Structures are given as structure tokens and as C-alpha cells.
């Protein structure tokens, strides 16, 4: 890969300020300092002729204090984006800010105010948990007294108090993930980057990790930027989500926003159970409702597709035909389905 650390290269990227102004004028961005992370036309190309577009024109805004899920298939550009945000890679084009600092010019400031749990995350396995955290804490010039207390507190937070003097080489995958979270919190960051924080750990450990992330966000107001493959996880803990594929941002918003987006594109799907009249009669009645695009009878259920929300209209039509609606549900689209729909659409 043709990569080079940010610190070693010249700064050619356009300034965030000038780009922000341009985007504000175009209505893409809002002028505000409420964002913990924002990127403007952020791009990263690899290859001699920049033919590999790992991240392509990414515009993201992550509000302070929210848990932001960054999802996408393998090779979508999630890790490359994260690398750029924490200053491990210089953008080819565009710019960004994390915690108010420029991702090219103020890398050290970013690292001082953020915590990162990368994937894979390795530690010094010849050292104990305490020694490892002490080493990381020294990199922030934390006073020895404060440092030692913080180490104990952090390990307590992640449930590793008993393992404080155990070598990390002997830790299980779950313990390593939790320890990784502790190392990311050693500087009390305002923004936390988590790359696949629950990958490879059992369901109980994963739930514990999610609870930890939620608690950190709730009690300390830490902004969390979470990259994950687990839609269940993202749906459970994230306030907002961005879906990326082939380097491009496909959708962003809350789960409900994404549902609306899909509804707009693909319509709404209802499931009905009807009494007093045969389903075929109910179907005939529903067919005439304006906006209904398709219907189907399966498993004693009437499946109705509509361009928009037509719940009341459909219920009225069935009632008018003499039927009683005993069950009326909108086909719930969980994040996994939404994700697949969005990816397929791309």
C-alpha cells in the first residue's frame, strides 16, 4: 500500500475553514461547533495513478456526545477513514476536524484528546495490565499519583481489577478487548474511536462491552465513533449511523431516518390478518386504494406494498368490504435489512 504517515508529509490539503465556508454556502454543512468529528470531501486514493479510491468524497458530521455507528462491508473504507481521522494517514483530498483539531496539521492534539481501540489491538504481553497502562499514561505526562489512581479506576471500570497485576499475554480475547478500552481511556478522551470492539468475543462479553460503551457515553459524555460489522450492536447503541461502501457514503442518519429513506425509495410493506371475509376479498378491496402497488396472500396473511404510509386508508377499505382487521403490522425493517437494502441499491 502506498501509505505514508501524516507527520512525515507536507500539508497540501485545503483548510477546513475555507472548505466549510464553501459547503455552508452550498447547504451541505451547517456552521456549528457542536460537532466532535466532521469531514469535508475527505478522500484517500492509493496506487500510482490514484486508481484505488479507498475513501471518496466523504462528508460526515458527528455531534458531540453521541454514539455514531460507521458501518459497511469489508473494504468499504471504514478503517482508512478512521486512520485519517486519527492522523495515521494523510488525506489525498479534502479535510476534517476531530475535537476541533485539523486532522492533518494538529495530529498530536487529536491524539491527546481522543482514545482509540484499533483492530487488531496488541499490547505488551510481557507486561502486566498495570504496567501497560502506566506506559501509555506516561505518554501523556500524567502526574504519577493521578496516573496510578486512574489505572486502578480504569481497570475497575472495565472489570479487570482482579487482573491488574497479570500479564496481558495471558488475557482472553474478551479481556483483551476490555483492556483495549481501558488503554483508550487512559487520557480521559472526549472522542473515542472503536474499531470492531466486540469482534471475536462471546455474546456475554460483547453485551458487557456494549454496556460499557453506553455507560461511558451516558456518564461522561464521551463521543463514540464506532466501526462495526454487527448491525445488532450498532442498532442497540448508536444514535446515528453512516453506511459506507466502496469508499462512498451511501446513507447517514438515525435508524428511523434510514427507514424513511428506504420507505421513500421502496415503499411500505404491511401485513394484515382479516376476519369475517375471505382474504381474497380483502385483497380486492385493498387493491383499489390509491398508492397500493402490490399485494400477495401468504400464510393466511395479506401482504400489501404501498408507495407511502397508507395504514388508515387500507384499514378503511377492508372495513368497507365487510372485514375486520385482527392484525395490522408494518413490516419492521431492522438495521441488518436496511443495510442490505442500501448496499444493494448502491
Amino acid at each position, binding site marked *: 500500500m502506498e501509505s505514508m504517515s501524516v507527520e512525515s508529509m507536507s500539508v497540501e490539503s485545503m483548510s477546513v475553514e475555507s472548505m466549510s465556508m464553501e459547503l455552508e454556502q452550498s447547504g451541505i454543512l451547517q456552521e456549528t461547533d457542536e460537532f466532535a468529528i466532521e469531514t469535508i470531501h475527505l478522500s484517500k486514493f492509493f496506487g500510482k495513478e490514484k486508481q484505488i479510491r479507498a475513501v471518496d468524497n466523504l462528508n460526515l458530521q458527528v455531534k458531540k456526545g453521541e454514539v455514531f455507528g460507521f458501518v459497511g462491508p469489508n473494504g468499504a473504507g471504514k478503517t482508512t477513514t478512521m486512520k485519517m481521522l486519527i492522523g495515521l494517514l494523510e488525506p489525498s483530498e479534502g479535510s476534517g476536524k476531530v475535537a476541533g483539531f485539523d486532522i492533518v496539521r494538529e495530529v*498530536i492534539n487529536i491524539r491527546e484528546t481522543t*482514545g482509540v481501540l484499533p483492530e487488531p489491538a*496488541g499490547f505488551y504481553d*510481557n507486561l502486566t495490565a498495570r504496567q501497560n497502562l502506566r506506559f501509555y499514561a506516561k*505518554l*501523556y505526562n500524567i502526574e504519577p499519583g493521578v496516573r496510578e489512581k486512574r489505572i486502578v479506576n480504569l481497570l475497575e471500570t472495565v472489570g479487570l481489577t482482579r487482573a491488574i497485576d497479570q500479564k496481558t499475554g495471558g488475557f482472553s480475547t474478551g479481556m483483551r478487548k476490555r483492556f483495549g478500552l481501558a488503554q483508550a481511556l487512559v*487520557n480521559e478522551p472526549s472522542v473515542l474511536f472503536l474499531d470492531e470492539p466486540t469482534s471475536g468475543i462471546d455474546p456475554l462479553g460483547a453485551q458487557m462491552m456494549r454496556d460499557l460503551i453506553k455507560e461511558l457515553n451516558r456518564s461522561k459524555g464521551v463521543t463514540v465513533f464506532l466501526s462495526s460489522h454487527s448491525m445488532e450492536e450498532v442498532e442497540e447503541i448508536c444514535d446515528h449511523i453512516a453506511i459506507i461502501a466502496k469508499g462512498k457514503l451511501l446513507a447517514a442518519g438515525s435508524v428511523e431516518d434510514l427507514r424513511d429513506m428506504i420507505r421513500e425509495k421502496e415503499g411500505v410493506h404491511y401485513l394484515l390478518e382479516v376476519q369475517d371475509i375471505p382474504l381474497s376479498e380483502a385483497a380486492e378491496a385493498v387493491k383499489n386504494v390509491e398508492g397500493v402497488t402490490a399485494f400477495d396472500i401468504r400464510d393466511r396473511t395479506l401482504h400489501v406494498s404501498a408507495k407511502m404510509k397508507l395504514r388508515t386508508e387500507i384499514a378503511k377499505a377492508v372495513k368497507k368490504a365487510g372485514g375486520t382487521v385482527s392484525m395490522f403490522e408494518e413490516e419492521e425493517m431492522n438495521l441488518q435489512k436496511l443495510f442490505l437494502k442500501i448496499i444493494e441499491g448502491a
Partner: protein
Amino acid sequence: MKNNNVFVITQKEAADHLHNTGFLVLLATYTAIIFASTYMYGSLVHQNNSVLLSSINVKMISLFTPLVSIVLGFDAVVREQKSGSLNVLLTHPLFRDNVLAGKFLGSMLMVAAIIVFSVFVSVGTLLIFYGVEVGYIELIRIAAFTILTFFYAVTFLEIAVLISTMVKNATDSLTYNIVIWIFICVLFGAILKTVVAILTGQTATESVLITQLLNISPLHHYGEAVIGRADLSFMGVNVESTIGGIFDTEYTLTQCLVEFWMNIVVLIMTPIILFIIDFIIFLRKDITL
């Protein structure tokens, strides 16, 4: 704060070496070799007017010191990359050059400590078992010898770290380092003699080409500067300078330094150039997050 971080890494690197059983075993073996070779060497009759200086077994030191450097540096970068700890480390507030500089400083500190220790072992052995006299002249020469040995050892340390930056795993790094060590410290002179004899038909003493090619070996510069011998490798080129290096007390130290300044400059510059190359490679390296 950023410079502080270099020292945090230096401290950790040095502490890691000191707690590494493999390294401690090697250090003990190295010390035993230095002690035994000095003890044996001290019992011989020496031509040089300083019994102390001529009793230090430079050939043995030149052969085994690089091994210590290799053990200190062969997995410096690749180990951290492979384990993922470099991934984590670089998310904290420090630059890549801080990491490399810290690692070098930590290992260089260990090299310096080991060389000083081995010099103490050598001199101590001669003082205790043979009661040799130690004067001002000897002390100055020993200090110069210690410094030259340090740069010689650091050259191998830089090679080891450079290879560790370039390869994918520690085993490959160790293999390449050992091959380079064998080539430079054991076989170089013999190979050179053979190749030149086949190509030109000249013997080692006649060939200017051999003398020129010897310049690529750090062992040549070390051997020449310390004891005035052009080649310390096995069955190598047997050419000696008029002045027997900085150990030749018939000449003043200034005269020796003037005579061997080129060797000394090469010994000092080689690790610096290697460090710069390593620095560039490390900066360009993709570190998977």
C-alpha cells in the same frame, strides 16, 4: 512532551531487554567468552609495550559483540507490528520517528552498557590474574577502544533494526541478520581473497582491489583502527598497518587518530546513514490499523 515520549520509549525498550531471559543468557555467555579469551590471551608473551592493551582479545570482541547487537535489534519493529502493539502505540500522542528514536536509544544504551561492562571484565581479569599495570596511557586508549567498539556494535544494531523494519516476521529478520553477521565477521576476507584470486590471479598481498573492497566491511575499519589489522575475519586478508591501531603505544594517540581517521569516520558515519535509511523506510511503512 514529544521529546519526553522518546525517553518513555527508551526507558521501556531498555527495561524490556533487561527482563528478557534470552538476552540475559546471551549476555552471560558473552561475558564468559570475554573473560575466558582475556584470561587465555593474558598468559601469552606480548610484543607490544603495553601488556594490558595487547592482552585484550580484539578479534573475539569483534566476532561476538555484533551478536549482542543483533539480539537487541532483530525484532525491534517487526515484533511490535506483528503483535499489533505498534497499532495501539501510534494512536497515542507521538510521531513515528519518536518510536524509532526511542527504540534506538534504548538499545544503544544497552549496547553501551554491555561494552563498558565487557571492557571492565577484560581489564579486571588482567588486573586480578596477571597484575598488569594500568597507566594513564592505557586508560585513554581503553576509552577510545570502548568508543570505537560502541560504534562498531551500533552498526550491527542499525542493520538489525533496519532488517526488522523491512521484513514480515522476526524469524526472517533473525535469519538475515545471522547471514550478514557470518558474511561480515567470519567469511568476508576468505570470500574476498578467493573471488579476487579467481578473477585476477593476484594474491591478497598483491591486490589493491582486495584492499579497496575491504572498505565495505565495518569489521575492516574496526580492526584497522583498533589494532592496525586490515581484516579480522577467518582466513581473511593478512595485512597489517605500520601503526598497530590505537593500541600501539609506540605512537601517540593523536598520531594513531591521524593515521586511522578515515576508518574512524566510517565507523561513526555508517550507523548514522543506516539510521536515516531506516527512518525513511519506517515512515513510509503501512501500519495496519
